[in-house]
Every structure is written in C-alpha cells, then in structure tokens.
C-alpha cells in the first residue's frame, strides 16, 4: 500500500466508522498532527486506528452496515409491493384500481432496481449478501402472535397505510446514514438520490390515501390523521416530526463545529406571509411540515422486524 493510499484509508476510517459526535474532534486532532510534521505519523496511525474501539454505545456504522440496511429496506418494500400486485405465488393481487396499480408498479420496480444497486455495491466490496428473509406483512410472525394488520393481503387501505409508514420511516433513516458514508462521495450521492426517490414514493402513497378519503397530506404534517400505534415500533415512526426547532453549528474557521444556533422561526423570521396571517401555532405547524426529521437506523429495523420472521 503506498503512502497516499494509507492516508486516504485512514481518512476513510476516520469518517466512516466513527459516530458523528466523535468525528469532528478527531479530525481536528489529525489536522494538528499534520501541521506538526510527518514525524508524528506513526502516532497518528495508532490513534486513528484505536479510536473506533472506544466509541462506546453511540450508533457507529461502516459503509457496509449502511448498505446492508438500505438494501434490507428496499428488499422489504419490493416484497410488500410485489405481493400487493399479485406477483408472488400464494398472494393474490389486492383490489386496486388500474391507476393505483400503475403507480404501485412504478414503486415496486424502482425498489427492485435499488436492491440491485445496493447488492452490487456490497458484492463489489467483497462482502456477501444476506439470505433472503421470510416476510409476514400481517405482523403475526407466521401465525405465532396476534396479527397487527390481519387484512393487509385483502384490504388496500391497510396495505397503503403500511406502505406509507415503511416509506416515511425509510426517508427518516436515510438521513442519519449519510453521516456514516460522507468520506465516500459516490456512496453519499447514491444515498442522497435514493433518499429523495423514497420521498417521492412516500408522497405518492400519501396522495393515493388522500384520494381514498384519508386525512393525510403528501408531506408529513401535524395535520395528518394519526397512524394507529399498533406496536411500539410503529409509534416511533412519526415521533419527533412535529417540532419546529431547527439548529445548526455556525461554521468555525475550518467549516466545522462552531457555536450551536437555533433558527428563530418562533420569533424574528418573517415567515408568516398569509393574508390574513396564520396564528403563531399554525405557522409553526408549517415549519414542522417543511422539515423531515432524521431517525436512527433502529427505528426502521424495528419496523422491518415486525414484518420479518
């Protein structure tokens, strides 16, 4: 391995195996060492390599972990929609209208395409693909417990609700995963493009449900009819989506890690432009709509676990 490659690999380790909270100080430390001169490189090597082991209980993920997660979500979606369309033996097609069916076909085909994209990236990296899981979208784990959605294979309304929840949670979890792959531009772009594709699908499923009479917007809104918390995992899917507080770190000299700033949506920003103006509460509901919140991987894997046995 040549010297440049070694350093590039260290940089990768730094950004991909560390929790975001830990990454910045470590990068700053590396920067200082770099300025002090290359004589310190052996020390840099040791400290960079030993850090991940001390990362504690924070969610830390490698690029492989991230790829396996997004592949798992795409595969689950592919199976859910394939069964609804009657493409899987033993699961007759749901009574969807022709227009509804055409939309679901688009979603199903793009899920399958993304399974292929992620599988390729995983095997290109020398890892092996996991065995295909067994699914039970009623949530009964193959009849071993009370079903959460007993009529999902016959009732389009139930299927569309589950489809929306699975998409909305995927959108949230993609956001948190980008932190773990930032050192890899190609993978970052792949995740971003997959993330917005998921959001398009979620929007369409919501539009379909609204056309069927459900009070739900195409974007996640505090005004949406609440989704029944059939399990603790489902209850987590929209938790924290109704807040209006957004914060960021003002950029320090290195573009990282300055002071934490809260965006003054509730005080000074002139965002209430309606005629007549909305109530203070109503405009903050719009702020909540305008930002989709990230969620940790476990929020999505817990939902996936409901339908896998």
């Amino acid at each position, binding site marked *: 391995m040549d010297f440049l490659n070694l350093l590039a*690999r*260290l940089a990768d380790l730094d950004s991909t195996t560390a929790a975001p909270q830990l990454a910045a100080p470590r990068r700053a430390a590396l920067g200082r060492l770099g300025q002090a001169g290359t004589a310190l490189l052996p020390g840099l090597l040791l400290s960079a390599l030993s850090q991940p082991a001390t990362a504690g209980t924070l969610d830390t993920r490698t690029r492989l972990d991230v790829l396996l997660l997004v592949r798992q979500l795409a595969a689950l979606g592919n199976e859910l929609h394939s069964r609804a369309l009657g493409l899987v033996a033993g699961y007759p097609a749901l009574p969807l209208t022709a227009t509804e069916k055409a939309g679901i076909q688009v979603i199903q085909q793009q899920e399958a395409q993304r399974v292929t*994209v992620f599988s390729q990236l995983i095997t290109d990296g020398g890892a092996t693909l996991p065995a295909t899981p067994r699914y039970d979208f009623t949530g009964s784990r193959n009849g071993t417990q009370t079903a959460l959605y007993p009529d999902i294979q016959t009732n389009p309304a139930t299927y569309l609700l589950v489809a929306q929840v699975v998409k909305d949670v995927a959108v949230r979890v993609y956001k948190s995963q980008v932190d773990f792959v930032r050192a890899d531009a190609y993978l*970052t*772009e792949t995740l971003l493009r997959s993330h917005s594709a998921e959001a398009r699908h979620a929007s369409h499923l919501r539009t379909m449900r609204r056309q069927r009479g459900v009070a739900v917007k195409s974007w996640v809104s505090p005004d949406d009819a609440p989704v029944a918390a059939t399990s603790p995992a489902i209850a987590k899917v929209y938790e924290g989506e109704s807040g209006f507080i957004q914060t960021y770190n003002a950029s320090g000299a290195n573009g990282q890690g300055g002071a934490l700033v809260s965006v003054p949506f509730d005080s000074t920003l002139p965002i209430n432009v309606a005629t007549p103006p909305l109530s203070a509460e109503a405009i903050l509901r719009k702020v909540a709509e305008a930002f989709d919140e990230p969620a940790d991987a476990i929020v999505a894997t817990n939902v996936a676990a409901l339908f896998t046995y």
Partner: protein
Amino acid sequence: MADLADTSFSGRALRRRTFLRVAGATAASSALVLAGCGNDDDDPTPGPDGGTGTLVFAANDTGILNLTYLVAQIQASLYQKVVTAPPSDFTAADTAAFVDMRDHEVIYREFYKSVLGTSVYDNGLTTALEFNFTTYTLTTRKGAYEAARTLEDLAVGAYNGLGRRLANSSYLRLLLKITSVKARHAAFVRDQAEPNSFAGPDVITPTGNQAGLDTIKTPAEVAKLLAPLVPVVLVADNLMTL
C-alpha cells in the same frame, strides 16, 4: 469493505481531497483563503436596474447556501404568484396545496437568509431580484402544476448534487431535512400534472447501474437552468471545484 467505492471516479477524487485536508496544512490554509472570499466576486451585485450584474457563488458553504437561498426565493415567488392569482380551474385542494408549498418555500428562504446573515448575496441590494416566469403558463391549473414541477425537480436535483459539497455537517443535515420535503412536493405536483408521473423516467434513472436513483444536477447545470428566470448572470463554476 473499506474499498467499496474504489472503482468509482468520484470516490477516488474524494479520497484525494480528504487526504489533502487531513495531511496538508497548505491545503487547509488555501481553503481558508477561499472561505474568506465570501459569496461575491469583485463585481457581484446586480446593477441598480436589476437587469445587469453577475452573481458568483463562492467555492464554500456560503456559496452553496446562497444558491439554495436563490432557489427558495424563486420557488416562493412562483407559488406566491399562483396563490395571489389562482387559475380559474383551481380547486380548493389545489389552492391549499399551493399555500402549503408557498409557506414551506418562504420558510426555506428565510431560513437560508438567517443562516447566511450578512453573507447573503442580496444583502446590499435595495430591491430584491425580480424573477421572470413568462416561460410558464400560470393562468391554468395544468400550467401552474407544470411550472411547479419544473422547479421542484430542479431543486431536488440541485440538492442531491450539493449535499456532498457541503463542509459543515450540520448544514448537510438540514439540507437533507429539506430535500425530502422538496421531493414530496415534486412527486405531488408531478402527479397533479400527469397521474402516476411522481417518479417518471425523466427524473428517476430508468436503466443501467444507477437505475432507481433520483435526479442529480451539478451546480453549473443548476445555474444554467435557472438563468432564464433570473435578471443577473449566475456563475456557479466555483462550486464545481468542491
């Protein structure tokens, strides 16, 4: 497993850049010089008539956020125009949706302006830029949704291309929170313009090894697509170096 994207060109490019940042004090200081340039060039602001001038986006987060700020300004302006004078065939649901999207875009506009502070590109302007929507037919429902579709798809592609260029991770997190809402807007307005077109082959790559992935635009492509709407010359070349 650390080599997953070794075969990709952009993966290799980023590796090199990361290397420079980690190991090179020289590289770090030249980045600072760029950061110090602010968002503007020597002759950055539009002329007093709003019809001349050049807007140069700097090669840093300030440049990126000024571009997303401009996109939000344009979209807020478009939705406001439609809300103020709705097409005669608009339903109550259409109006409600456009009001929502107008409010979201105003929220984005003011959010970016707040983050940028005095670095916002129009800080010194006495009158805000006037955008030119004459290429759109905003007097019909179909035309209004088609205009919204063009801009929402453009915004999604722009955001997907800008994400990896941001240095400040907290900005990227906010950008991602906004991106998915923009994609939801895009899918909604596409479905209204043409049923089931929410993820059509003009935005989601239909075949090949990127099949299933959404649209992505470089900053230069974004500037070119925005050009007809904006009364100044947009120069996003610096963002291409990020």
